[in-house]
């Protein structure tokens, strides 16, 4: 796996793939191109089709239509064992009756790897996940995080060009999950394999991925780099699913911009064409000191009343009631010089026009 002369990642292409269960479409016209060596995350709520897509790629689920190619080769007619992909499962799926060594050696044994080569490769894979001293243990003698790392070693020991991860971190507790994110990133840069990662956890998706495909109802709602998916969501669904946001319906205003009824303000033009709503992240909104004007002339200013401050550690999130009756959220760092806002404080808020992201579809 450290052999850099070998071509590493493979290109994956989903072409109009669909999967129906009776009348229900688990996957519809699913079109996706994943570059060689890319870390792509399928992110979505349960039932969005992300696991179906992964299972079709692994060969556990038969597609109802379309084609899937790895490096140009159609793989839909191949059984899972012929696809040469590695996979890490949510439940780890380690063989309980085999030692750690035997688990990791399993794919090599099936590939008739000579014994000495096998021993070296297993040792190398276990070292990579820092479990070199655990080769003789049974899976039941390991902690959840260690089991997870064995599962990883087993999935990559035969140098598959594609590595699939199905909710692979969900079974771990929070601290471990965050540590594993780092390990997986290291692993990815070291292996160079194409990784398809399935999760419902947006935090995982944002930290790990080169690109995120946000899925909904069997389709890709948006596919982009993590920062663009976060900063430039195009649909209400994506805006709300990734991070926290305030969504306001808008109507076209005179002179090209849009009018936000809930805030009683207009936002001047620039890219607002066809917007049905705007998404405004809580951290993009600033509270102004009493009675003062916006520090920046272009800022959009509106008023509200603090409803509920929520202490989040390094930030405080405020719930604000608007004159229209709507509630919205904004967030600021603590200790910004001004006294913290309290319930029922009147507050003047401001945001830059370009931080309001136009939402064109639901």
């Amino acid at each position, binding site marked *: 796996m450290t052999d850099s002369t070998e071509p590493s990642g493979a290109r994956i292409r989903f072409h109009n793939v669909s999967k129906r269960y009776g009348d229900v479409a688990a996957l519809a016209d699913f079109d996706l191109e994943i570059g060689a060596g890319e870390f792509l995350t399928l992110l979505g709520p349960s039932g969005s089709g992300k696991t179906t897509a992964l299972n079709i790629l692994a060969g556990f689920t038969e597609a109802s239509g379309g084609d899937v190619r790895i490096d140009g080769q159609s793989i839909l007619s191949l059984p899972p064992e012929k696809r040469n992909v590695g996979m890490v499962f949510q439940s780890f799926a380690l063989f309980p*009756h085999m030692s750690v060594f035997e688990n990791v050696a*399993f794919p090599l044994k099936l590939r008739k790897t000579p014994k000495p080569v096998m021993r070296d490769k297993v040792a190398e894979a276990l070292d990579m996940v820092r479990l070199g001293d655990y080769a003789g243990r049974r899976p039941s003698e390991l902690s959840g995080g260690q089991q997870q790392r064995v599962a990883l070693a087993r999935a990559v020991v035969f140098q598959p060009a594609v590595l699939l991860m199905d909710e692979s971190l969900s079974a771990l507790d929070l601290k471990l999950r965050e540590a594993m994110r780092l390990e997986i990133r290291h692993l990815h840069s070291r292996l160079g394999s194409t990784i398809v990662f399935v999760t419902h956890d947006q935090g995982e998706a944002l930290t790990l991925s080169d690109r995120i495909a946000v899925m909904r109802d069997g389709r890709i709602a948006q596919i982009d780099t993590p920062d663009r998916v976060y900063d430039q969501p195009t649909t209400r669904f994506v805006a709300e699913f990734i991070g926290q946001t305030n969504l306001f319906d808008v109507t076209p205003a005179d002179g090209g911009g849009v009018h936000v009824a809930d805030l009683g303000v207009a936002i001047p033009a620039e890219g607002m064409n066809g917007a049905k709503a705007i998404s405004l992240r809580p951290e993009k909104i600033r509270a102004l000191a009493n009675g003062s004007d916006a520090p920046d002339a272009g800022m959009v200013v509106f008023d509200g009343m603090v409803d509920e401050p929520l202490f989040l550690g390094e930030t405080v999130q405020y719930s604000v009631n608007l004159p229209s009756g709507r509630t919205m959220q904004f967030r600021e760092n603590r200790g910004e010089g001004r006294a913290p806002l309290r319930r029922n404080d009147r507050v003047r808020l401001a945001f830059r026009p370009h931080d309001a992201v136009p939402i064109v579809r639901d």
Partner: protein
Amino acid sequence: MMGGDKTGRVLLTAYFAVVVLYLFFPILIVAPMSFSDDRFLGFPPESWGLRWYEAYFSDPVWIDATVRSLRVAAVASTLATVLGGLAVVGLERWRTRWRTALTVLFAAPAIVPNVIIALGVFVVAIRLGINDQELTLAAAHGALALPFAVMIIGAAYRQIDPTLERAARVLGAGPVRAFVSATLPSLMPAVVSAFIFSFFVSFDELIVALFVMGGSETLPVRIWNDLRFELNPTIAAISIFFVAITTVAMTLAELLRRRGANQSRV
């Protein structure tokens, strides 16, 4: 309060003792009789000795019947375990609307009265000219034991994480190899347990054996025939001998089953 607790405990203990007595009553009677030195079966015995154990081991007719029973039971339990194991795999994986019906079908031999099964097997065996043959009896016994094998192996199968086999597949194993290397090891204790259980279903089965076997007696048939002509304590000795063996084997089977249940949890 304390007094009430105490009374409750005494009552519970008494109840427990009665149930145990109820369950073990036959053995409590037969065990002393087997160590009798009397000429006839009676309770309580007037003199003590191992005379009837000796009588059993030295009579070729008894030994012959015992060996025949062991042979039949070996074949029957192999049949029940293999067919039962395959049935479980089929029933659990085959998503069909006939599943419930099939499950009931596999339980049928445990529900239909043995005498009905015996009659059916008898008629068919006569017609085919295969009555009085060990294989015929073994086949019938295999069917009788099948529901237990399906039950025991099925319970273990449902405990096994199905992603284990998927993992084996994606790592490079074909369907059979994946089953053998991922699922079967966790299933093995239950398979052994089912084998032992089936073995004893066959070993002490009388009714079907009475119908099917003519001249060649199995051990239960031999006991039955012996009882009809004379009451001597040999049967008591045999009974206790086999109760001992059965107890050991069943304990072993149960231990294996539990070890398996613990191991398949990670």
